[in-house]
């Protein structure tokens, strides 16, 4: 019955935790023990990791004999498999541990076991053999889509746009069309401030552009910190934004630093979530996040699909950045100034945190706030409307963190906040690496709290 040709990759569906898995171990004297497992996690084609939650008989036996046999069931066909395993080591931090911890939080909350389930470690095993029981098997329904084809379309879309904002909008639209992902967003990393800020979203009532999440918090923050995909198949309050992340921001005293004025756009009751880091080499560019009000919407294959797409996003973002930085600035575009009309609008800037208010309404703060203030100040002083990305990059007053700063993402954020909150001032692209400030009403600038400006 032993079928050594069964590959672990072919039975990953069994490891999604739909049908409980069981593990058998033996003590040194040959006394067997069997227990339910919370998680059998796919590591790579030759390894799985089991969740270590309690020091129990299983743990004692594994440490003594290094052997275990796990029984898993295919939740679609009902096929039963047994994996002979050899224990290698335990990890209690890092990407694998965090992936399993997040998954466990979802399982715990789904089964009402929040107080009981705590991941102490990820026990990594080599798969020695996979055996299939000859149980009757249901026919698997046709796959809803070809993931490879979806990946191909999404990646092709990334190369189509010349600007970051268009590229990200196209991406989220492609994810919906080709992967059926209805609720998604892209966040960019600001490692200096230890946070991620939303630059694009799709499928929410409010865009939430500008909202921020601390690196290390929630599904998105942990994916960014560990540079690994994090996904949850069930509602998990521990990883929810509304309670946990807000509480953490306050606890860390970050409410003055991080963006808390712009509400997080996410679903109120997400049941499935996945966050995949966008990397360029080892550098963290941001996070692609998707969620659903239904359970178990993102499996191993979806994770692989999104990870493939995000690796292309990383490259595409870097290419856009360097193209913008190397843009030809000598060729000034013709000015297209419109005469401001109507009553003046008060734009108030608070120097302490670069927060900007349009009349009484909050617009933005931080780096994007500082950029906006620079633009409107120069407009007020010199009637200047044409700007380049490069001059922003070089302006010490903006305190852009370093050369790796993703200025283009800040501009997208600012541009979108203006569209939502300040329709009479717009940022319009006027060429590669350059843009134009379009002002439709007279501006009255008020600087608060900094005499030097």
């Amino acid at each position: 019955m032993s079928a050594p040709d069964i590959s672990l990759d072919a039975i990953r569906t069994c490891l999604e935790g739909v049908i409980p898995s069981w593990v058998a171990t033996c003590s040194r004297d040959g006394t067997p023990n069997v227990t339910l497992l919370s998680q059998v996690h796919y590591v790579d084609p030759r390894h799985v990791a089991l969740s270590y939650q309690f020091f129990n008989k299983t743990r004692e036996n594994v440490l003594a004999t290094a052997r275990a046999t796990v029984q898993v069931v295919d939740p679609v066909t009902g096929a039963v498999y047994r994996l002979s395993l050899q224990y290698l080591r335990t990890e209690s931090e890092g990407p694998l541990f965090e992936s399993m911890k997040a998954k466990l939080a979802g399982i715990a909350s789904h089964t009402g076991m929040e107080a009981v389930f705590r991941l102490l470690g990820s026990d990594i095993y080599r798969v020695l053999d996979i055996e299939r029981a000859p149980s009757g098997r249901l026919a698997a329904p046709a796959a809803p889509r070809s993931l490879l084809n979806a990946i191909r379309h999404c990646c092709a879309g990334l190369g189509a746009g010349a600007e970051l904002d268009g590229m990200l909008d196209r991406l989220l639209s492609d994810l919906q069309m080709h992967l059926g992902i209805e609720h998604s967003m892209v966040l960019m990393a600001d490692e200096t401030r230890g946070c991620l800020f939303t630059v694009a979203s799709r499928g929410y009532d409010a865009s939430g552009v500008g909202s921020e999440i601390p690196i290390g918090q929630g599904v998105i923050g942990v994916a960014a910190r560990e540079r690994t995909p994090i996904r949850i198949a069930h509602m998990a309050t521990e990883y929810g934004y509304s309670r946990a992340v807000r509480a953490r921001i306050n606890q860390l005293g970050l409410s003055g630093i991080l963006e808390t004025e712009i509400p997080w756009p996410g679903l109120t009751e997400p049941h499935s979530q996945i966050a995949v880091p966008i990397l360029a080499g080892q550098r963290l560019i941001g996070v692609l996040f998707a969620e659903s009000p239904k359970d178990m919407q993102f499996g191993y294959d979806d994770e692989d699909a999104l990870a493939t797409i995000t690796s292309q996003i990383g490259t595409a973002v870097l290419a856009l950045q360097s193209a913008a930085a190397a843009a030809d600035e000598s060729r000034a575009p013709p000015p297209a100034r419109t005469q401001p009309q109507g009553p003046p609008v008060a734009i108030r800037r608070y120097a302490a945190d670069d927060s900007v208010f349009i009349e009484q309404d909050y617009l933005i703060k931080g780096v994007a706030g500082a950029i906006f203030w620079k633009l409107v100040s120069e407009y007020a002083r010199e009637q200047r409307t044409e700007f380049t990305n490069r001059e922003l990059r070089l302006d010490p007053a903006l305190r852009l963190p370093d050369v790796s700063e993703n200025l283009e993402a800040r501009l997208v954020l600012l541009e979108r906040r203006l569209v939502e909150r300040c329709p009479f001032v717009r940022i319009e692209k006027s060429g590669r690496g350059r843009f134009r400030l379009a002002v439709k009403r007279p501006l009255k600038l008020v600087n608060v709290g900094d005499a030097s400006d």
Partner: protein
Amino acid sequence: MPQRIRLDRDHIAFLESGVSIVVASCGDGGGPSLGFAHGCRVLPRGDRVRLFIAEPHCPTLIADIRRSGRIAAVFSRPDSNKTMQLKGVAAEIRALAAADSRSLSGHIEDFIANLAIVGTPPDLVRAVFSIEKGALVAVEFAPNAAFSQTPGPMAGDRLSI
């Protein structure tokens, strides 16, 4: 002398209530084996348990039990998570008796009903437990230890039965 335990009425009712049953033994080289049981019957005195296992589905498990007599069996209610493990050292493989067939027929249907509460489709359960005629053997043993394995702080505690 290994301890002998006698299961009371409540325990017997639980074991025979359409629970999920997973059985393990130990191989020659110390490697564990496991498989599902398709039902269970506690003999009238409450000191012996018969488990029904499809040999073609888990030949290693049956071979290990036949060779070593060692057995561990976990009984778990999917809708309540109540879980109990029994162990024995001298399990034997026997042919099915008429009384076994009667308890078998009810088990899968009760099990399907229990699993339906947690959302598992009946067809899936039937697929997992579909077997060829004559595949089942009875594994009989006298439990010498019982443990609670209901998730929580008491998990793993020995039950004083």
